[in-house]
């Protein structure tokens, strides 16, 4: 639009860098509406500020004039006029903001896709509830959503307050223990968007990210179907041994892998770990090296997180990694 181009030029210096993960690179009607509101406020307040600065500059540099009653009256009228104009502008911004707010608020459409998100200290549990319950999909730190359909997030937390935020899609909403909240996402184009925890929640608040993938409805359906299946069988002897290592060491006390008898509930569900893009709540790429490093000593990578270091012999570690990498 004309206005965006103009203001982009004005603010070129600092929007030059890559805008992939930014509130200004919008991918949903809500984000666009908020960004337009942003430009409106920027323009209105910008003009007012420049006017005041100009007035100040002139006042500071103009030659001195005599103290006259008429001068006094002129200045009184100028101040009154400025006050009235600024009040009017603020009223305009107020109405624009309230209208935008109503547009962005959460209308509960019947066809919305329900996703339950539970905030934990420093990772995100994601559940897709279904009827019958056996079709429920449980995953972590990665959210797939179909494009073109409203997504209703039901947010809750089990420990401290977190805040769910995908800059490209919509504002943020807190996850408060004992007080469930709701949030709306309506992605209008496909893409991989990064999300973040935006409320200080302890040691690893900095690395409590997640990935949100908006994809075509059919690809979303195939992803959902694959997530419903139990863990895939290990393909070779090494992977089988890796499964034994998993079941015999500390992993099984916290992690769950559906189908092999690991039901831990205190850490991310690993049934389809290999299908996820990142590990360590969107901190490391999901490849062999980082995964091995993470298993051996996650404290070095994310000091203070709740996963203990695991001193495994080399071959056990390799087999375990090969097993986990096989969990498509």
């Amino acid at each position, binding site marked *: 639009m004309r206005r965006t181009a103009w203001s982009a030029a004005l603010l070129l210096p*600092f929007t030059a*860098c890559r*805008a992939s993960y930014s*509130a200004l690179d919008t991918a949903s009607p809500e984000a666009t*509406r*908020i960004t337009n*509101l942003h430009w409106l*406020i*920027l323009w209105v*307040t910008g003009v007012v*500020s420049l006017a*005041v600065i100009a007035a*100040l500059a*002139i*006042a*500071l540099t*103009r*030659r*001195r004039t005599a103290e006259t009653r008429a*001068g006094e009256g002129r200045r*009184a009228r*100028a*101040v009154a006029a*400025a*006050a009235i104009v*600024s*009040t009017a502008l*603020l009223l305009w911004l*107020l109405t624009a*903001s*309230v209208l*935008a*707010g*109503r547009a962005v*608020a959460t209308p509960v459409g019947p066809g919305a896709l329900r996703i339950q998100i539970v905030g934990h*200290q420093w990772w995100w549990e994601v559940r897709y509830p279904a009827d019958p319950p056996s079709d429920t999909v449980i995953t972590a730190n990665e959210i797939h959503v179909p494009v073109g359909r409203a997504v209703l997030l039901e947010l809750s937390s089990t*420990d*401290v*307050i977190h805040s769910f*935020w995908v*800059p490209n899609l919509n*504002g*943020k*909403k*807190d996850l*408060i*223990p004992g*007080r469930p*909240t*709701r949030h709306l996402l309506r992605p209008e184009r496909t893409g991989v968007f*990064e999300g973040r*925890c*935006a*409320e200080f929640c*302890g040691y690893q*608040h*900095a*690395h409590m990210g997640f990935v949100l993938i908006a994809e075509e409805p059919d690809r979303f359906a195939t992803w959902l179907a694959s997530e419903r299946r139990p863990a895939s069988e290990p393909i070779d002897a090494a992977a089988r041994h890796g499964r034994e290592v998993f079941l015999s060491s500390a992993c099984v006390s916290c992690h769950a892998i559906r189908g092999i008898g690991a039901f831990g509930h205190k850490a991310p569900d690993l049934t389809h770990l290999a299908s996820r893009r990142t590990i360590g709540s969107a901190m490391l790429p999901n490849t062999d090296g980082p995964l091995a490093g993470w298993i051996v000593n996650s404290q070095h990578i994310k*000091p*203070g997180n709740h996963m203990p270091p695991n001193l495994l012999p080399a071959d056990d570690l390799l087999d375990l990694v090969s097993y986990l990498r096989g969990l498509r």
Partner: protein
Amino acid sequence: MSAPAWEEKERAELARTWHEREGILGRIVSVDHKTIGRRYIITAFGFFFLGGIEALLIRLQLAVPENRILNPDLYNQIFTMHGTTMMFFFAVPVMLGLGLYFVPLMVGTRNIPFPRLNAVGYWFYLFGGVYLYLQFLGNGGPDAGWFDYVPLASSQYSTGHRVDAWVQIINFTEISALIVAASIIVTVFKQRAPGMSLNRIPLFVWAMLVSMVMVIFAMPAVIFTAGSLNSDRTIGTHLFNPAEGGDLLLWQHTFWFFGHPEVYIIFLPALGIISSILSAFCRREVFGYTAMVLALVATAFLGFSLWVHHMFATGLPQIGESFFTAASLMIAIPTGVQMFCWVATIWGSRPRWEPPLLYVVAFFLLFLLGGMTGVMLASVPMDLQVHDTFFVVGHLHYVLIGGALFPVLGGLTFWFPKMTGRMLSRRLGFWSLGFLFVGFNMTFFPMHELGFHGMPRRVYTYLPDKGWNFWNLVSSIGTVLLAIGVVLFLVNVLRSLYRGARAPQNPWGAETLEWATESPPPVYNFLRLPVVASRSPLWEGKELPVVTGLALDRREVLVTGALDGAPSHREEVPGPSPWPFVASITMSVGLIGSVFNVWWLPAGFVVSIPPAVAWYFTEEKP
């Protein structure tokens, strides 16, 4: 020419009556509003430097991605200490100090009404800060952010006595603020110079008065909130435990009901300083006196009505939140009126380009940008995008450093001659302001960009592929320039103390009463209290009429009517006494001890009663 004989005799006798003893003991017993005011300012700047060092450490850690200088535990302590130090131990106390020092002088009286209580107020403030930093040095600093949201700050997720330290210092700093507020309010209403009716009170005094009234209403809210967390953490009540009927948002509501007025308590005195500087350097009364006073009062009222804009993301009902958007936008109007009146004051006057005026110009530029981002944060949908990101960090520093620190530095430069009798160097003043302005903008302007790019607040590090590296580096370099500016200001102050030019009574030709006495003012402020006939007594041109008849052998102040300043009676003011210091020691030990064992609190309270009684009844023989 030598002063007339009677004046020498009166000065000697007054000096003996209002005598302040030397040495450590003298310091402890002193009740002079100037000594305590100066102490507040110096201690506040001491904490400002500590807070500055913490800021440097934070920026050092965030200069490059995945930096390993500070581990998360230490970083959390440092950013919490930075916030707590700057808000509770610098911003409010420096305003209290300026108020304590200059309000009595500007209203033309000898001392504040409750001098001994004020001494206690300062000691509480000092002991609170010392305790917080001692615990911080023992790796026990609070680490849940300066506003300590529950449940992170509850005993289950913040173990040990870290957050307990934060909870206790709230008692210390807020009690000292309440004490100073009481003293200033009574001084302004009951001890003004004769003839100083309500519409002749200097704008700085109005600003301090309105700010102190806000203190009276805001500080108890945080004392209640911190007290509730304290009882949850130590004796096991469940005020913030949802399982037992408590509510987590109760904390956010009661804290921010104090939180937002707190920043206006810091901002209003700054408005007063700017009015004083502008009237002095434009040699002209500030335009629209009534409008300015009403704007101050309006800002105070609206300040209490918009705290929920800190909580837009907690899922409160949409309609309710938009009320607070309206309130947050409305508060821009009174401040706008003040800025328009200042511009009108400058319009047509011949401003003198001195450092204080430059500080005011810097304030204009920075506060306007702070106001712009403030309006953005006021709107709910916009705030949901930028809340708790570096955008907010940028906004709050623009309105706090731009809106309060620059005016305070301007005020200090303006009043330094009066406080110390020495002029600050003009050249160093310009250099320090230059570094401050450039460094400040280089540090905090990129933060708005980082906020839009999704960088959350209070992160100890960040990944390299997020696109935040460049602006974080720029911001960190900016901090160095800011630090240089502050150091230059300090060098200017220290150098001028010994080698600054001698300052006459009224170096800037200003119009208010503090310039009607020597620099630095004697212990008794005025030989004879001045009588005021207009808003700018010193610009009347003729000799100031004075009040005669105040006793010279007793510490007396003239009590005048609240509306028109008509003299009503003479009141004797208590002199120095060691007991306030003793009482503050015992009460502080009680409060600090209660962190480690609850029974210290009643013990400390009981032990404080004798010194408190003694402080009230004993009279120091001059």
